[in-house]
């Protein structure tokens, strides 16, 4: 038996989302009270009961979420923002103690990664080794919350209030990463990757070793831009371009090819709104007006790193 699993923290997430819905329902001044509350409540249900609900039911719940968001019925309320004066006052009162909870998160990550999987009483295990990163993260958030309540002597309602305010600021963008991951899954089930790999391989003179490298790295980056996920691109592009051309036709080293190829895919991740959890959600989280500001900041680096990857692979893959 395992005490702490993904499901423990998904349930906690679900409870937080339901509390957000509850706050909205009790706010008569909310501009879209019922539909916004419905959005967060339905999302909460997919977190609490996702494992036990039939996928078709979840699918239709997702459809409800998308319709609510796309018709502009999910809005943020006018939760009170703490005044700058108030915050500066608190910063003086608490001093550096305010950092303790924030530092508890990385501290728990480090300790948790090293120890969690080894704690067991007979057949009862604290956490599964495969889930250790996420469990450490979840534990970190819980420990930090406990510490924060102690240090600040805040009311229990305050974290709910703040969580609700910030989640509503992010709004429906929050579910974009999950929906895009689902789209990626449907793309790969439908065989989109094979078509892309075939197109790239047939459009270029891949009998030249350099062009084979360029086609592979470019395929990884392009396909990742389309799918938002370099992992999904890897199997398809390596199977369709990398193995047949770089390794079998030109005798390249598979380890070097795979390693640098995956990192070429990450250059695509830096460039695409499809990788929403890295690029769009942070823009909302940091309250940037331009949703694509993070991509704009990253684009020059993505281009440079990609070019370096191509040269590096070309120089090394046929030599070692």
């Amino acid at each position: 038996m395992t005490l702490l699993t993904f499901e423990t923290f998904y349930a906690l997430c679900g409870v937080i989302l339901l509390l957000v819905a509850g706050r909205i329902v009790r706010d008569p001044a909310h501009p879209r009270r019922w539909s916004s509350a419905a959005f967060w409540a339905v999302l909460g249900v997919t977190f609490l009961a996702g494992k036990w609900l039939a996928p078709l039911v979840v699918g239709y719940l997702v459809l409800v979420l998308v319709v609510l968001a796309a018709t502009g019925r999910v809005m943020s309320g006018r939760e009170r923002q703490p005044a700058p004066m108030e915050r500066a006052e608190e910063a003086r009162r608490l001093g550096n103690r305010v950092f303790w909870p924030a530092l508890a998160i990385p501290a728990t990550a480090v300790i948790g990664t090293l120890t969690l999987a080894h704690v067991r009483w007979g057949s009862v295990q604290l956490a599964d080794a495969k889930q250790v990163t996420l469990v450490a993260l979840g534990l970190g958030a819980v420990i930090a919350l406990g510490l924060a309540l102690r240090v600040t002597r805040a009311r229990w309602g305050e974290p709910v209030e703040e969580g609700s305010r910030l989640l509503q600021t992010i709004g429906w963008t929050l579910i974009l990463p999950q929906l895009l991951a689902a789209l990626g899954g449907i793309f790969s089930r439908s065989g989109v990757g094979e078509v892309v790999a075939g197109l790239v391989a047939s459009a270029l003179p891949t009998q030249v070793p350099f062009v084979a490298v360029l086609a592979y790295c470019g395929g990884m980056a392009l396909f990742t831009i389309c799918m938002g996920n370099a992992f999904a691109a890897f199997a398809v592009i390596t199977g369709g371009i990398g193995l047949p051309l770089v390794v079998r036709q030109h005798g390249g080293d598979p380890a070097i090819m795979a390693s640098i190829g995956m990192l070429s895919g990450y250059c695509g991740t830096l460039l695409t709104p499809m990788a929403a959890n890295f690029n769009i959600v942070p823009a909302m989280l940091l309250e940037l007006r331009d949703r694509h500001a993070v991509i704009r900041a990253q684009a020059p680096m993505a281009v440079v790193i990609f070019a370096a990857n191509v040269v590096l692979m070309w120089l090394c893959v046929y030599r070692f």
Partner: protein
Amino acid sequence: MIKLIGILIVAAGFAVRANTLLVVLAAGVATGLSAGMSFNEVIELFGKFFVENRYMTLPVVLMLPVIGLLERHGLKERAEMLIKHAGAATAGRVLLLYTAMRQISISLGVNIGGHAGAVRPLVAPMAEAAARARHGEVSPEISERIRAHAAAAENIGNFFGEDIFIAVGAVLLMKGFFDAEGLSVSVWHMALWGIPTALVAFGAMGWRARALDRRIASEARTSSMKEAGKK
């Protein structure tokens, strides 16, 4: 070829700025139907993958209550006070230091950062405070630019450090792929070849961080010249 209709819908949707969720749903349905699935089968897949990928949303939802609480009690203000005492700090240097810490820790298998857990509460405010300590109040454009670069510093550090550690998802995924193809490829070998790109990525972040600092400095000069002109 018709299977590529989903990619076309996504590209067109982003271009006309239609609601992204709707675009993604439409692209999925169109692709699924063109590959011979029924509507219900596509919706079922959406449900299945939506549940499987809940881990993507988890950190944000779990972190926000505690981060919000700390912000209300002066976390950002305190981070700013700290950085004002560090004389050599610039926005770019703060971000570059964070990238280095993120790359090193994740290459050892420990995930210490995150946009919700570290960038919003600590890294971005510190970088902004460093710019203000040096140049006085900064324009909203510069402030947004610094925050965008803070998010980028997290991504660069996260992506281009982790493949050096063999127990990480990406290296194991590659290993699994080669095993299925009947090729024996060493995980150590793959991890080793992640190092050159990690160094290039760090260099690229250094270049961008310097460019950011120069931009902030030149903006501060022109705005102070305007101020002087008014008087």
